[in-house]
């Protein structure tokens, strides 16, 4: 695409990096001024490592990077930033106890005689947040109080305030909803006209089609192809990423036989995000929960599960053929005892014991069941249980004694799911089950979810990816401002209708109307 890239702004040649195994092999990459160049590939393909090399987090073993003709070999993030290379990472790196404003300008707080000028800081912060469409956000609130999506927007806002010539975005939209994505893309286009080159790492083909000029496919640390984004079809790209053609995505097709109502949520109120949510899900059904970030979907799942205190309403569960009376679970332990399971949104913080083994993680919900009399652990039984669950979910591993921190995101997610399979849960709640997971692992997760409903379980799936919900679910409930605004069956749903419903709760001043 020489027409698009007359003078390379950034030029990487024969980059090599190996840890235990090679991660990048003779990797070449060019970025023109004002270009959005997407990097796609499965997890572990080497995209993030490359981004980290440019940003100074990782040093390459071999190869050279030229930035505007001069060598670029940063040893720290600050080095890279000094040359205008700014990275927005996939993991969220805000300091939770500091305010949004302090997080935005932590390295350049406005000060006089060593005292922070808070008025100036907050004014700057408001401008920065306005730019990403969150002008209403209280910039004095601690960053830890924000949801994942908002935190991601703060990270992006922080990058946008820096003088940058190369902006690297690593899965920026994984936690964002459509309006936020649109706003992000608007910002990217503005940067482009200013000559900033953008490296866009993502799994989301839609994003790439919309924003990227060129797209490079990485597989096993090598560049497979680079071409204009417009000329590539999704199937082609996915095929190149996995190295073989994928079978066409199996749609769920006609709804199978549904059983009795397995979980009924009735006027659930919790915190200030969940304001009277009601819905139900049947045995053998996948119910999708769509909605904007902050609409209360995650909080609804947590409240059902007893993870957060419930202040109104409750849930009715069907347990061994009987529907139990309306109740509120005081703790997750109580919910699990009645056959509920939750796969949380944030795997690393809420799901896994990262330094511990697959065995310990996969059996965590069933430790007493695998133990002998008097509570002695039976390691051999745990091994069998963990192996079985991992085989069933095709967890890629060297051994079940391997630490889960060494697994890819998709395989980590499978380990969390494995924990609930071992318990034989009747109702499973999934919060963003494919967030930050590569395309082929996503397909595996979908297949697992379908197998679970085929066994007569009831699933509730929260996702910000509408396309995902529409391929996976039997029914989609749309949350807006803490309530269910609408429900759709496959014959009636469309992206437009769901999006409209997602906004419906915010059209009037819904904060006071309770």
């Amino acid at each position, binding site marked *: 695409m020489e027409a698009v890239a007359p003078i390379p702004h950034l030029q990487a040649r024969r980059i090599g990096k190996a840890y235990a195994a090679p991660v990048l092999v003779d990797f070449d990459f060019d970025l023109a001024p004002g270009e959005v160049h997407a990097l796609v590939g499965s997890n572990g393909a080497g995209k993030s490592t490359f981004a980290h090399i440019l940003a100074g987090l990782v040093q390459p073993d071999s190869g050279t990077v030229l930035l505007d003709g001069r060598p670029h070999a940063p040893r720290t993030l600050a080095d890279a930033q000094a040359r205008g290379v700014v990275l927005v990472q996939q993991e969220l790196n805000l300091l*939770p*106890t500091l305010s949004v404003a302090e997080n935005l300008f932590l390295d350049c707080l406005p000060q006089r005689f060593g005292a922070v000028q808070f008025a100036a800081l907050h004014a700057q912060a408001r401008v920065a947040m306005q730019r990403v469409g969150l002008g209403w956000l209280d910039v004095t609130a*601690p960053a*830890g*109080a924000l949801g994942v999506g908002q935190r991601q927007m703060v990270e992006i806002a922080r990058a946008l305030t820096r003088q940058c010539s190369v902006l690297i975005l690593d899965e920026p939209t994984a936690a964002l909803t459509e309006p936020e994505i649109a706003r992000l893309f608007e910002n990217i286009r503005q940067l482009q006209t200013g000559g900033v080159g953008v490296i866009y790492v993502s799994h989301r083909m839609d994003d790439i089609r919309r924003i990227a000029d060129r797209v490079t496919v990485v597989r096993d640390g090598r560049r497979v192809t680079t071409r204009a984004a417009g000329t590539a079809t999704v199937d082609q790209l996915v095929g190149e990423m996995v190295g073989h053609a994928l079978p066409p995505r199996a749609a769920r097709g006609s709804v199978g036989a549904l059983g009795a109502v397995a979980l009924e949520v009735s006027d659930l109120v919790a915190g200030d995000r969940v304001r009277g949510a009601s819905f139900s899900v049947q045995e053998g059904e996948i119910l999708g929960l769509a909605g904007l970030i902050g609409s209360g979907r995650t909080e609804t799942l947590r409240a059902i*599960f007893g*993870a*957060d205190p419930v202040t109104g309403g409750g849930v009715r569960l069907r347990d061994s053929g009987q529907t139990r009376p309306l109740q509120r679970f005081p*703790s*997750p*332990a109580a*919910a*699990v*005892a009645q056959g509920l*399971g*939750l796969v*949380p949104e944030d795997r690393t*913080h*809420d*799901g*896994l*014991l*990262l*330094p*511990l*083994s697959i065995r*310990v993680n996969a059996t*965590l*919900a069933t*430790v*007493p069941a695998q*133990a002998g009399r008097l*509570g*002695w*652990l039976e390691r051999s039984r745990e091994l069998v249980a963990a192996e079985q669950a991992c085989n069933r979910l095709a967890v890629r591993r060297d051994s079940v*004694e391997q630490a889960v921190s060494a697994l890819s995101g998709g395989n980590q997610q499978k380990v969390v799911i494995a*924990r609930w399979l071992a*318990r034989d849960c009747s109702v499973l709640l999934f919060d963003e089950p494919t967030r930050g997971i590569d395309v082929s692992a996503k397909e595996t997760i979908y297949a697992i979810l379908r197998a679970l409903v085929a066994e007569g379980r009831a699933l509730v799936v929260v996702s910000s990816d509408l396309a995902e919900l529409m391929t996976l679910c039997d029914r989609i409930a749309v949350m807006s401002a803490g309530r269910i605004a609408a429900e759709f069956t496959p014959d009636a749903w469309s992206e437009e209708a769901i999006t409209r419903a997602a906004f419906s709760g915010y059209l009037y001043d819904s904060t006071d109307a309770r």
Partner: protein
Amino acid sequence: MHGNRIRSEYLALFLVWAALVLLFGMLSENFFSLRMFGALANRIPPLTVVAVGMTFVLIIGGIDLSVGSVLGLSGAVLGVALVDWQWPFPFAALLALGTGLFAGWTTGTVSVRLGMPSFIVSLGMLEIARGLAFLTTDSQTKYIGPSVEGLARPLSGLGLSPAFLIALGSVVAGQFLLTRTVFGRYLIAIGTNEAATRLAGIATLRPKIIVFALMGVLTGLGAIFHVSRLGSSDPNAGLGLELSAIAAVVIGGTSLMGGRGSVVNTFFGVLIIATLESGLAQAGASEPVKRVVTGVVIVAAVMIDAWRSRWRGGFLALFRRHFRMGKFNP
């Protein structure tokens, strides 16, 4: 594979201890004597049982600064029961254990149920228990005499005291509890990631309270050992014990950030500290020099710990954990 790594850690600590023994053996003539080892074995039971309890407390990501005072209080109660009330030893001993249990359970309940850092709550308990120890004994040292000394007297033919054997038993039982039981698995899970453990359907509050209560019982046991070794009960007993215990646990490689630790390694930590102390004394080091050397050893051990767990935020995370007052919804 797991087992091998742990065994290599045992070996490393054992070698450190052996090196210390060798070093002091060369520095002073009488160090290498059976009598010396016997004296060492008879000195360490109180520290050993307290350090076993402290290992559990650190594994769940907590800390208990009150153990020295609680040992003083339990010992004071023991002395008063034996001397003033003329209780038989078994009942007085049970009362001392109960006193420790109550103190530990209180610290645990307040810090766990109210979500307060155990650092602060146990700091409060440190003052409370020491005050109560003085109130109980009217600031007097109670001379009890030979009726309690049986525990600390070496058994003929073995050269080791019952107290030492019980302390050794608590190490074995503690290691078993930690690595081979459901309860121990939960403690490791809680220390590694409490939010994830809770969301896996495990009740996390009660095990944490039990750990503090267990810490209290073991401190009470330590008090009995201490009193029986001295033949008297002193309300000042156990001053600074919390620091020796934490130091022993940390030298044993237990993570201050929770989730990782070993009771057996803690025992090696205790041996290293006690050997250092008596070895330096034998070699003629003054009290100030002893303290400087011990301090250096502790810091070196923590540095190694921080280096080993750097990926989890290192030593700074400890400070963040213990001084974080306002908590976000976990």
